[in-house]
């Protein structure tokens, strides 16, 4: 006897289920198929190729009218089911009731719409069905059309790439730090972003949408919480999906995040089954099609009274965007006892990472070359023991032996017109020519081309050009790499960051072939400094790449407490400041010390109290003294001509002016200044990084002194007649140091390497000096701020995450 089967939703999952059912027993059921969309089953995945114009809708239809007719399916397309009456065993559609013996729910999911102000404006759409796709395609007909996509996950990026392919100007706004954060790690996310930028798509990460702006009821722009406004004619929200469970819920079926089903795909009612994105199976919900196909098979068997059980397997992801080759499978986060194998080929833009646990691959992410994705995915699913092939695993199944990543690849890939020696303007082609003409060592290259003949920071690079050009004939002198994470020297890294315009940490790790996922305590602070010094407006300083003192804006003491030192400009203070300091000392139980840098130190403050003491000092008008930073520390002054009978100029005023100009700037190592009002030099200016000694005729500026474990007198840089000139020369000197020096080289060490002559020559050029000052000012537009005030705003970070002292001990 034929039973009545009603199916709600003609989706990917239910379509596949019907195929299995009719294959096994065409006469078992009399089927009625409801679908809210005014059409039958089509391949939803392929909406993206339809959007980009690679396919037409007709090509993605999976079941046509003939198929439904041949299998005797009663189609109720364009009709929504509004109710299920389980007591009477009928389904209520918009056009009337249908009785059932067995009912299958395949209602899929609903796109989640963030309830931003303006989300109900016309032109704000999700990306789920053909109508949405057509709305985006239609926009391509308008010249100069603009679209914004909220959400940098799989769907959002396919929508963005599809629209870009139709000539639409697209911006993607993503709240997380990198794209597709659920499938990709930072490195792969970086490469993906680069490919999308090449397609003309603007990608904004860590961007928080605030409001959708409309005009006459239609979307006009998206406004971010930092005030940025992105004009658009269409706004696509692709921020996630929620299982569509309303019908099931109202019918009183057991639901959680989705409709609860057992291993046989049966809901809490024995005659009602469910599958697809609307279900929840053992706590899991679904967003990709592979497990849904397994469910379809199981559900068909269950309907035919056969034993079958659904098992949820690992899924893999690919992005269907031409030119963005990525693959992600398994789990590459959370868990102990795991190790990484990382492979990068910067020249080809390739990144691969495998995560191993107990000699088994548990996760794989790759970008740029995904040919081996299926092979790795297979090993993940099978749980293959990979101990024997561990060393060569990352090279994939085709590996024939030998071959590791070439550290010289970056140099080999440089074009001929790439500048190698900045001082003398020598490019790679010229050097290669000289080498081929017989200049086969560094000295000869220097003599013929002048490359590496001046400041010398490009020496490593010239040697690499020699190595690439001469091959085995050139024995590379052992250069000191930054650390075990790379073979490059500090000088190499600095130069490549500038020449390749690397503006983020992932960019450095990838393009320079780092061997670790995110560096170590040696290289990361250095790279963080190089990036912020070279790209002040593009790169955001990363506190997690800083040593504790710079992260907490205070000096950690040997007992784990901190010292707090407000700035006293040029060593000047007043009664109000001293009163506030005294109050703070009382309130937080701090010891008080007058320092060698002409200010007052509050010692022994608890970490949790830091935001409070800063707030108090801020309120009295004081800011951080940066006594903890690789940056400007103090400008020590003497009382000068205002008070001293020997004084020739206003040394205190000049010191204050310099300190107010330079404070907040990050430098390769700490920087201390001194300004004395006459050659008696009471401010001990001539053992500072920069010292100014006032004389009757003007000012003597000297640099590169030291008074630490090593003591060294400064060397004269220039004599000038006005304060303005002092300020210009000092600023230019500091900026040159910021742009050129190796991290943790004090100015005296750096000057010893490049030579005072070169420094004088560079700064002597008026235009160069002005350019340096200008770049310093650009950087200071970001960094001349009080970090204490900023930290007070996120003070919860200074408290413990949790306090379990009161938990009952069992």
């Amino acid at each position, binding site marked *: 006897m034929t039973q009545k089967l009603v199916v709600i939703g003609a989706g990917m999952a239910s379509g596949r289920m019907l195929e299995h059912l009719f294959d096994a027993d065409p006469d078992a059921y009399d089927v009625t198929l409801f679908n809210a969309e005014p059409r039958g089953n089509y391949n939803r995945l392929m909406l993206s190729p339809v959007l980009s114009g690679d396919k037409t809708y007709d090509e993605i239809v999976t079941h046509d009218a003939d198929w439904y007719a041949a299998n005797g399916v009663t189609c109720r397309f364009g009709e929504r089911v509004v109710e299920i009456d389980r007591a009477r065993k009928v389904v209520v559609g918009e056009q009337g009731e249908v009785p059932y013996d067995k009912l299958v729910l395949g209602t899929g999911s609903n796109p989640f719409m963030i309830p931003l102000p303006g989300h109900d404006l016309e032109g704000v759409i999700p990306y789920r069905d053909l109508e949405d796709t057509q709305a985006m395609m239609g926009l391509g007909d308008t010249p100069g059309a603009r679209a914004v996509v909220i959400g940098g996950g799989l769907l959002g990026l396919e929508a963005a790439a599809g629209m870009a392919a139709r000539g639409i100007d697209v911006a993607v706004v993503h709240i997380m730090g990198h794209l597709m954060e659920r499938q990709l790690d930072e490195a792969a996310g970086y490469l993906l972003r680069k490919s999308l930028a090449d397609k003309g798509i603007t990608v904004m990460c860590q961007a928080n949408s605030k409001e959708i702006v409309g005009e006459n009821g239609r979307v006009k722009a998206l406004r971010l919480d930092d005030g940025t406004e992105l004009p658009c004619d269409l706004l696509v929200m692709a921020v996630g999906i929620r299982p569509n469970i309303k019908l099931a819920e109202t019918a009183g079926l057991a639901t959680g995040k989705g409709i609860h089903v057992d291993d046989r795909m049966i809901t809490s009612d024995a005659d009602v089954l469910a599958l697809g994105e609307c279900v929840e199976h053992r706590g899991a919900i679904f967003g990709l099609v592979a497990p849904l196909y397994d469910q379809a098979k199981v559900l068909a068997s269950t309907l035919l009274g056969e034993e079958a059980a659904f098992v949820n397997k690992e899924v893999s992801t690919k992005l269907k965007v031409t030119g963005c080759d990525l693959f992600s499978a398994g789990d590459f986060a959370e868990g102990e006892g795991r190790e990484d194998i990382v492979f990068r080929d910067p020249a080809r833009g390739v990144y691969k990472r495998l995560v191993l646990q107990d000699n088994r691959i548990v996760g794989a992410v790759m970008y740029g070359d995904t040919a081996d994705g299926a092979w790795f995915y297979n090993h993940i699913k099978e749980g293959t023991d990979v101990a024997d092939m561990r060393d060569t695993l990352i090279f994939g199944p085709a590996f024939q032996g030998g071959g590791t990543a070439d550290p010289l690849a970056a140099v080999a890939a440089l074009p001929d017109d790439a500048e190698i020696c900045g001082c003398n303007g020598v490019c790679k082609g010229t050097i290669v020519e000289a080498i081929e003409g017989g200049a086969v060592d560094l000295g000869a290259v220097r003599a013929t081309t002048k490359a590496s003949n001046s400041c010398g920071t490009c020496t490593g690079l010239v040697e690499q050009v020699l190595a690439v050009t001469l091959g085995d004939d050139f024995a590379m002198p052992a250069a000191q790499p930054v650390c075990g994470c790379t073979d490059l020297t500090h000088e190499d890294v600095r130069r490549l960051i500038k020449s390749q315009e690397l503006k983020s940490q992932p960019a450095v790790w990838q393009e320079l072939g780092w061997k670790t996922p995110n560096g170590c305590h040696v290289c990361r602070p250095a790279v963080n400094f190089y990036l912020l010094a070279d790209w002040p407006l593009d790169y955001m300083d990363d506190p997690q790449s800083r040593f*504790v003192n710079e992260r907490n804006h205070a000096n950690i003491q040997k007992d*784990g407490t901190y010292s707090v030192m407000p700035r006293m400009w040029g060593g000047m203070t007043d009664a109000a400041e001293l009163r506030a300091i005294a109050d703070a000392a009382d309130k937080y139980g701090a010891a008080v010390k007058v320092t060698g840098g002409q200010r007052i130190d509050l010692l022994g403050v608890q970490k949790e109290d830091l935001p409070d003491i800063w707030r108090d000092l801020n309120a009295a008008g004081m800011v951080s003294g940066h006594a903890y930073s690789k940056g400007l520390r103090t400008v020590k002054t003497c009382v000068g001509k205002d008070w001293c009978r020997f004084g020739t100029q206003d040394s205190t005023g000049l010191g204050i002016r310099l300190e107010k100009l330079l404070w907040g700037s990050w430098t390769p190592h700490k920087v201390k200044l001194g300004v004395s009002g006459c050659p008696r030099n009471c401010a001990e200016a001539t053992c500072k990084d920069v010292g100014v000694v006032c004389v009757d005729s003007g000012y003597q500026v000297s640099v590169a002194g030291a008074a630490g474990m090593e003591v060294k007198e400064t060397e004269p840089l220039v004599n000038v007649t006005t304060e303005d000139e002092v300020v210009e020369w000092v600023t230019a000197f500091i900026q040159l140091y910021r742009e050129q020096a190796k991290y943790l080289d004090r100015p005296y060490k750096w000057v010893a390497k490049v030579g005072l002559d070169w420094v004088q020559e560079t700064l002597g050029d008026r235009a160069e000096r002005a350019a340096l000052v200008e770049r310093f000012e650009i950087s200071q537009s970001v960094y001349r701020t009080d970090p204490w005030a900023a930290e007070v705003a996120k003070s919860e970070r200074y408290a413990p995450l949790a306090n379990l002292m009161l938990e009952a001990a069992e």
Partner: protein
Amino acid sequence: MNWIDIGHIDDIPERGARLVKTRAGCVAVFRTGADEVFAASDSCPHKGGPLSEGIVHGRHVTCPLHNWVFSLETGEAQGADEGRIATYPIRVEEGRLLLDAAELAARSAA
């Protein structure tokens, strides 16, 4: 096992750590760049440096005082240095951090 909810993973900065005060002493909860989470003693066996203030790289942390490096998985000091920090079971469920209090209690009683 007695899993206690101590907060959300986003309360810890990526490649950073936060402290949890317990009867067994301060426990540092680390979050790596790949969003893995580890719990270990906050106190460096060398001279007691606060490891939660160290730089987190890969699955390692470097002590802020004298640069000893520890594996967050095994607790072992790396390289030439010899020492070990206690590690504690922790897991993440839908973003919530769950620390095993039974294990902590066992350690403090021991």
